[in-house]
């Protein structure tokens, strides 16, 4: 046991550059034994990169890492684990078709005379599970387990390898409130045993609930490190953003009373029959932006896909008075629905296709490049050039393959494409994710212009600034249901956050 003065992990002067961006600049972090240390910051503040450096996935360009006072250098995650640092990933790294036990011991298997020593492994796993209160069944098949259980297996994986410092990356992003409570209880158990936890999050209320110390990152560098007990969420938020929280602009309402999208009793069921979207009814008027707020994983993706006809559902969907229930995706899109998908690489782009081919994607049957059964390539190229100009897509040409563009520019192309299809309804999921701040503002301006012209927008976003700033009305989605309707002009992130986590109605 090291002296209590020596921090168990210390990062100093960490700098990491990638082509075109400095992810971390002169970052400092000090973690003591048995403490829960939160690292907070906005998207793009450099949290992920810092953690990747800490657990050996990346090497810093400058700076030092010390464990128990001694400087170390990690070549790969194996070195980090050997030093006692374990990462619990946000996107779980589990093999579905293997049992819990097999997943935990993978890569560190106890063997006896050539055979896997499952007996010894099982004993150790159960012992760890009891000690830290994790409650895992070694023989369960991972496929059958829920999100909360899977997370605990990830924790067990690193504990099994002797980790004394756990890094949790946005652990509550996919948990419902009950599971969050269970997780925090586990963290208590870990802390009691002298294990340190580094907790990355942008959810300030949770951070203050569970952390001892908070380090704030902004734009790649450390802003400050404070004791959790002596700071409020508002102060932290200010430190994170660098200014006051946004207040929605007062502007003339462009909302008409013509209903463009009418959804009644929409229900989407998982293959096991569980409703992931339950009895959702909503309306979006022409000239209105309806924002859907909620923790990711509460059915937003399924709702959007059901509206696009990509997922089976019950209930009715009317667009501009026409009944679209049961229609194919193509009919819906040609009927006037524009779609900016959440996963642009999987659903929004042909990565190896050229930019002009991506311009055509989803709009094959439309002018200016559809002529009967043919596609006018020249017109497609010209129109792509127009989008590139109007939306500020930074590219040397339109023949370039889409994968070569940065994420932000890809997103600009997609938004430009969808707006160019002259939709009557735009369904946008995280439309400015990965886009730099200046371009984000540009895209918002495009959206507002279109809204003035009568476009109805269904906006799903995790960016509170975007939601509050763009929406005329807010609804909150929790566990597949719409649980609250809020006015962005009068609501605050605290009220919104409470509704999103089901922590109670008014603050």
């Amino acid at each position: 046991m090291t002296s209590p003065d020596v921090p168990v992990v210390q990062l100093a002067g960490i700098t990491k550059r990638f082509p075109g961006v400095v992810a971390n600049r002169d970052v400092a972090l000090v973690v003591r034994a048995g403490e829960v240390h939160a690292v907070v910051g906005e998207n793009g503040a450099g949290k992920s990169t810092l953690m990747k450096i800490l657990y050996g996935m990346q090497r810093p360009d400058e700076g030092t890492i010390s464990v128990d006072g001694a400087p170390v250098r990690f070549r790969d995650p194996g070195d980090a684990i050997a030093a006692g640092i374990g990462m619990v990933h946000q996107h779980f790294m589990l093999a579905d078709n293997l049992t819990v036990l097999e997943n935990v011991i993978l890569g560190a298997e106890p063997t006896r005379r050539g055979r896997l020593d499952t007996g010894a492994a099982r004993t150790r796993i159960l012992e760890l599970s009891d000690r830290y209160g994790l409650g895992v069944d070694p023989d369960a098949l991972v496929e059958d387990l829920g999100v909360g259980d899977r997370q605990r297996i990830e924790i067990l994986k690193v504990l099994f390898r002797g980790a004394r410092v756990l890094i949790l990356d946005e652990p509550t992003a996919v948990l419902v409130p009950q599971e969050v409570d269970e997780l925090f209880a586990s963290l208590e158990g870990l802390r009691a045993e002298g294990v340190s936890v580094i907790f990355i999050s942008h959810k300030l209320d949770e951070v203050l609930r569970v952390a001892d110390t908070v380090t704030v990152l902004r734009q790649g560098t450390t802003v400050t490190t404070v004791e959790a007990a002596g700071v409020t969420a508002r102060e932290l938020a200010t430190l994170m953003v660098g200014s006051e929280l946004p207040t929605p602009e007062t502007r003339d309402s462009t909302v008409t009373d013509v209903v463009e999208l009418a959804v009644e009793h929409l229900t989407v069921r998982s293959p096991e029959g569980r409703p992931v979207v339950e009895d959702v009814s909503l309306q979006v008027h022409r000239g209105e932006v309806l924002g859907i707020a909620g923790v990711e994983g509460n059915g937003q993706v399924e709702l959007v896909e059901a509206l696009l006809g990509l997922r089976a559902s019950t209930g009715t969907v009317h667009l501009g008075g026409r009944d679209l229930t049961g229609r194919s995706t193509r009919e819906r899109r040609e009927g006037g629905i524009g779609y900016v998908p959440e996963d642009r690489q999987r659903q929004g782009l042909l990565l190896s296709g050229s930019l002009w081919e991506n311009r055509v994607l989803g709009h094959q049957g439309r002018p200016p490049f559809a002529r009967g059964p043919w596609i006018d390539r020249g017109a497609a190229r010209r129109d792509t050039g127009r989008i590139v100009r109007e939306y500020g897509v930074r590219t040397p040409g339109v023949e370039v393959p889409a994968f070569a563009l940065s994420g932000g520019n890809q997103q600009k192309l997609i938004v430009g494409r969808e707006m160019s299809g002259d939709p009557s309804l735009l369904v946008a999921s995280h439309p400015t994710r990965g886009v730099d701040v200046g371009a984000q503002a540009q895209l918002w301006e495009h959206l507002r212009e279109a809204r003035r012209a009568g476009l109805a927008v269904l906006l799903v976003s995790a960016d509170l600034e975007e939601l509050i700033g763009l929406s005329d009305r807010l609804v909150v989605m929790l566990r597949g249901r719409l649980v609250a309707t809020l006015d962005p002009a009068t609501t605050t992130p605290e009220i919104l956050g409470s509704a999103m986590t089901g922590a109670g109605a008014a603050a």
Partner: protein
Amino acid sequence: MSTALKSPASTTDKRRRSLSVRPRTLALGAGLLLVLLSTVRVVSGADDITSSGTSGAALRLAVPIGLAGLGGLWAERAGIVNIGLEGMLILGTWFGAWAGFFYGPWVGVLAAIAAGALGGLLHALATVTFGVDHVVSGVSINLLGGGIARYLSSLAYGGDDRPPGSGQTQSPTVDALPSVSLPVLSSGPDLLGDLEDRGWFLLSDLAGILRGLTGDVSLITLLAVLLVPASFFVLWRTAFGLRLRAVGENPVAADSLGVAVYRLKYAAVIVSGALAGLGGAALVIGSIYREGQTGGRGFIGLAAVIFGNWRPGGLAAGAGLFGYADALALRSNDAVRGLLLFVALLLVVVAVRQALLRRIGLALTAVLIGAAFFLWYATVDSVPSQLVGFTPHLITLLVLAVASQRLRPPAADGLPYRRGQQT
């Protein structure tokens, strides 16, 4: 500050689902099949349906299919689809026959394994290191394997100084490996054979089947049969096997835990090729190499993998089924006709079960198709020989059509993998 101790949910039911078929269901199913087969034999008079000759041939013919299937299993469990099994099988047959003739059957076996392994190495190189699409690489290897075999045949057996019995498209006869029989029951007093000849319902059929499976079994066959539990042991009970399976399910996760993903994929595919090569040896040792003799068995082996839900036990059952179809097709036209009756009866059983499960539509369909088969059986004296030839392939297709959707292939099967790419 209470630590919420989570009690593990009851997962016994789920656990049962993850294992293969329960022993009791298996026994019941086997019993039912036996009764059906016996009935068909008695009714149609085609003794070959359950004769020891047929079951012995079925076992022999199942071996190359099963070995190719094991090869497919090993590769796919590591995430690589190996369509090139046919080509590796061909290489195994050619080199097995050539080395077997000149240097004896055991050397032939070794040469066949080596040749197949080289084919596997080529496939691994193309798919793992160069990232070529798995099916494309496999198809290319099939082309190459066939070409190499033809070319080498013309070299080795084409000249005027060719070994006796060989020709442009075939090799001289290779000595056989010794075979073993079960004492007392299948040799010597041959009690099972005796029982078989009595012609009693059910007992004689069982005796015939058992005798065929235990009499005059070549050592290669024995080796092949042993490789099934051996594969299970290695893949499910050793660290190497666990890592290999993890690579096929989630290579990114495996990599994050320090598993050598590339190396394991290479190992799996080379083993895959070696097994296919051994399958080729099984075809030629004791016989000859003939151009085209593999007859698509590499692909039928892949079908057996799917049939067996990517587990060695199911794979063996699938190979046995296809081997049986192969044996019937070769041995007796009468028996194939009897097979029609068997299918009709089986469909009746299926119909009854569907009706009990209240799936009337499916039950009716089964009854109709069953009736069609019965009609076919009743109205012809024999099934045309050209149609008999593709019985195993047709059965493969039907099995796939019925079973494909309830299966669980390795999650990363067939997907390209590059170190460092994000999911």
